[in-house]
């Protein structure tokens, strides 16, 4: 009887979370995932695990930048084969791809060795050892692909692209890739669909990619429009990109969110919302050109863009629907194996009636001691942003915001988090600041399903401190 109790309790607990989330929920972004990924090589691809950099930096593909996992080099949205592999091998409690060797003994109690990812035998797959090896074995590697979310592949591998066989049975170089992303939320007493995305990537030839992500944000009554709020479907991202180049350089043109600071999935954080970077809002999208490169550990993204007025929702499908202003953003730094440091700047110049001028600067960083100490599964990230803005009267003032978060990963698929954010939306004004503290648990029971429950406390500078419980479920492919 006694030995079964913990199993029963954990099952009930898990079932309760799933039921709650089924009624509700959202999820996931992941500068934290990127920061943690460097602790072991085989969470992004299959063996061989030996880390041998090509001598020429321009040939290196491994880095901790967003493009390692996402099709969009600036991060967020549909993932490439490496990101999908990470999502199957490392994130879940029950892995469906070979579990990273370092994680074999990190399964939660009662989720032990039953999954086939922890077989402790010699049958773990091995990928190509180099580009030349991938080219030599190309036909056999391509034969082994089993990937229902992609169609087609190219006739030969690309030196600067992802190589077949490196991501187990996932198609590393598809012609067409379709994804899905559904986020449901419960914020008592509300249950609502937070967001739905259907991204499509077309990669007709090496070096050229089209990405169109059609999505909508939800509300308690569904996806219908409401007063002054557009909930209908729109192009969240739509761009053409030239990439797979030396130094992982790229150029893209179209509609996107500018690269700035940490691209958190929590769009309510003031480091995103206060600076027109809220990923949930169509108003945060801009139309322009972005270039960048990630020669291994350094990275840089530089964008020039135009945008709709601050509070105007741009046309859903016409990505050239902009107003008179323009903007530019730069995001650069160094993402090393156990730490990173970056800085961002963004300028927007436009008439006061369109939102006025803003100048925003940010510094951010990550520390991942887990890489060096296997018994210390902690990761910490922070971002501090400040800058000037124009009020709707035309007067100038300053604003600032801070976010920092500590993650503890006790077992595979279970992340405990502690986060604090603070903002002062107008530094001249008294009593307009607020602190928010979050204690949360993110559970990924199986690949492509993440449950995120958070207890949040808001402390405004004046008035009552209040709290709520936010549960979200993220389903993604």
């Amino acid at each position, binding site marked *: 009887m006694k030995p079964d109790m913990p199993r029963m309790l954990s099952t009930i607990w898990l079932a309760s979370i799933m039921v709650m989330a089924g009624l509700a929920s959202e999820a996931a972004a992941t500068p934290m995932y990127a920061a943690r990924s460097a602790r072991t090589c085989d969470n992004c691809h299959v063996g061989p695990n030996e880390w041998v950099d090509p001598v020429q930096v321009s040939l290196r593909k491994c880095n901790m930048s967003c493009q390692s996992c996402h099709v969009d080099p600036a991060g967020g949205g549909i993932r490439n084969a490496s990101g999908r592999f990470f999502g199957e091998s490392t994130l879940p409690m029950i892995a469906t791809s070979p579990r990273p060797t370092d994680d074999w003994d990190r399964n939660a109690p009662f989720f032990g060795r039953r999954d086939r990812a922890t077989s402790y035998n010699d049958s773990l797959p091995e990928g190509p050892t180099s580009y030349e090896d991938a080219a030599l074995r190309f036909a056999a590697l391509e034969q082994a692909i089993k990937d229902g979310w992609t169609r087609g592949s190219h006739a030969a591998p690309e030196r600067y692209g992802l190589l077949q066989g490196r991501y187990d049975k996932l198609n590393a170089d598809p012609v067409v890739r379709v994804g899905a992303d559904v986020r449901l939320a419960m*914020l008592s*007493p*509300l249950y609502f669909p937070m967001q739905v995305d259907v991204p499509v990537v077309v990669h007709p030839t090496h070096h050229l990619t089209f990405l169109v992500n059609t999505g909508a944000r939800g*509300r*308690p009554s569904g996806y219908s429009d*409401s*007063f*002054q*709020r557009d909930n209908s479907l729109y192009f969240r991202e739509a761009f053409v990109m030239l990439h797979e180049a030396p130094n992982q350089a790229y150029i893209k043109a179209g509609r996107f969110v500018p690269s700035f600071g940490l691209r958190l999935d929590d769009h*309510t954080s003031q480091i995103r*919302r206060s600076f027109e970077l809220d990923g949930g809002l169509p108003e945060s999208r801009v139309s322009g050109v972005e270039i960048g490169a990630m020669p291994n550990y350094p990275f840089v993204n530089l964008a020039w863009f135009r945008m709709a007025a601050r509070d105007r929702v741009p046309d859903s499908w016409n990505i050239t629907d902009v107003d008179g202003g323009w903007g530019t953003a730069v995001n650069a730094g160094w993402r090393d194996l156990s730490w990173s440091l970056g800085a961002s700047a963004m300028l927007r110049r436009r008439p006061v009636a369109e939102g006025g001028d803003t100048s925003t600067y940010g510094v951010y960083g990550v*520390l991942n*001691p887990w890489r060096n*100490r296997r*018994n*210390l599964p*902690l990761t*910490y990230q*922070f971002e*501090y942003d400040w800058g000037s803005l124009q*009020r*709707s*009267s035309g*007067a100038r*003032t300053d604003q*600032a915001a*801070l976010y*920092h978060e*500590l993650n503890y990963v006790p077992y595979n698929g279970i992340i405990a988090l502690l986060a*604090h954010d*603070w903002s*002062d*939306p*107008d*530094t*001249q*004004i*008294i*009593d*307009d*600041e*607020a*602190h*928010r503290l*979050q204690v949360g648990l993110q559970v990924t029971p199986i690949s492509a399903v993440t449950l995120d429950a958070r207890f*949040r*406390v*808001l402390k*405004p*500078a*004046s*008035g*009552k401190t*209040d*709290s*709520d419980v*936010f549960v979200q479920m993220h389903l993604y492919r």
Partner: protein
Amino acid sequence: MKAEKARVMRHICTSTMVIAVVLTACGSGDLTLNQADPDIVAQKPTWAHVEPIIQRECVPCHTGRDETPNNDDNEGDDDLRLGDARNKPTAPMGEDPGLESCLSVVANLEDVIESIFEKNDMPPGAWPRLDSKEQLTIRRWIDANPVPSCE
């Protein structure tokens, strides 16, 4: 090894707290928005200025229209009337009145003032509160006339 782990944890926590305290202490001005930038909103806002704020910040939860001009702060009475308005026999006790129309906001003005200006507890939980400009707009609308105008 445990001592080493504890030491690293302590360093991370201490550094984090120091950084947070230093950075967040840099904020906070000493003027109200009315003092700093009196022209940022109309001196006599109309319902047209207020309605988008109410719709955005209040109506997602406070659906329905409780337009009874009793303003009696009688939640039970409001609930019953709200229930009628929704064609239900009764609404659950404790449910707040709907704020979907100007008349319903005026009818529940005491609650609105208490929540926005006295307790600053709405929107609830950890949702961001109304910002200074939104608060000033509603304050001036309320103060402009003996009874706020729905014109």
